[in-house]
């Protein structure tokens, strides 16, 4: 039980570091740590398939993509823009209001039941695969089309034009 609170504290701590780090590379490294704590949350919930997918897709693929883009862009120190102080205060205030609103409405609901795992093999690959390929077969196939179109779109957007426009 206390494992959850420790990992939750780490998640919040690292996600605050993500948005407050000056250097974008440090932000990405803290984001990796945040996603690692999320993987531990999934393991604690016994969602083993999601833990592995989170580990591979987020920490493996997406963050490598972020790092590659950042290195491609080659940010310098002077190119890091800073917002005015008042805008920062307003942004933190707005986000804090959102958190307080949800938390107070949660308090009105009163105490909740604990999260109990009734079925121990709920999050295993076998069980999830049965649900995925019976009830959600059509969305699964459509998501393959989505990934293909995203791949084509990304290549189309990121390739340079052959001849310069202003020549």
């Amino acid at each position, binding site marked *: 039980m206390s494992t959850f609170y420790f990992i939750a504290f780490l998640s919040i701590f690292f996600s605050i570091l993500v948005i407050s780090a000056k250097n*974008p590379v440090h932000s990405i490294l803290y984001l990796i740590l945040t996603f690692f704590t999320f993987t531990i949350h999934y393991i604690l919930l016994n969602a083993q398939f999601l833990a592995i997918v989170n580990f591979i897709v987020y920490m493996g693929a997406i963050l490598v993509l972020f790092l590659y883009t950042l290195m491609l862009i080659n940010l310098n120190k002077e190119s890091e823009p800073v917002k005015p102080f008042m805008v920062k205060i307003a942004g933190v205030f707005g986000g804090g209001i*959102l958190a307080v609103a949800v938390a107070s409405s*949660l308090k009105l609901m009163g105490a909740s039941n604990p999260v109990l795992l009734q079925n121990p093999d709920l999050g295993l690959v076998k069980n999830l695969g049965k649900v995925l390929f019976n009830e959600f077969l059509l969305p699964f196939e459509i998501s393959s089309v989505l990934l293909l179109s995203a791949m084509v779109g990304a290549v189309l957007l990121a390739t340079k034009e052959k001849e310069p426009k202003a020549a």
Partner: protein
Amino acid sequence: MESLTNTMHAVPLNHYILLSTIIFAIGVMGVLIRRNAIVIFMSVELMLNSVNLLLTAFSVYRGDATGQVFVFFIMALAAAEVAVGLAIIVMIYRNTNSIDINVLNRLKW
């Protein structure tokens, strides 16, 4: 693994909702206070992940595997979104030599 999940049995659902809310709010703050487009993108990823965690917690709470399948779809969506978004950022950088989102205010009209 059995002993690991047995230690979890006392966490109330409200605490999962609270954790997800806090991380979602941190993501919103990140979008609002940063001007670097890549960091804003990372804040969006943070928000997606907090929702994923909440969906998984509800799925375990209800004993229904549908929530975890939805998390899987959200991850596929996030991968597609990141690929297209980073391509757009690279293109913006090539055209303007900066990833400050304020240079994009010419898109307003």
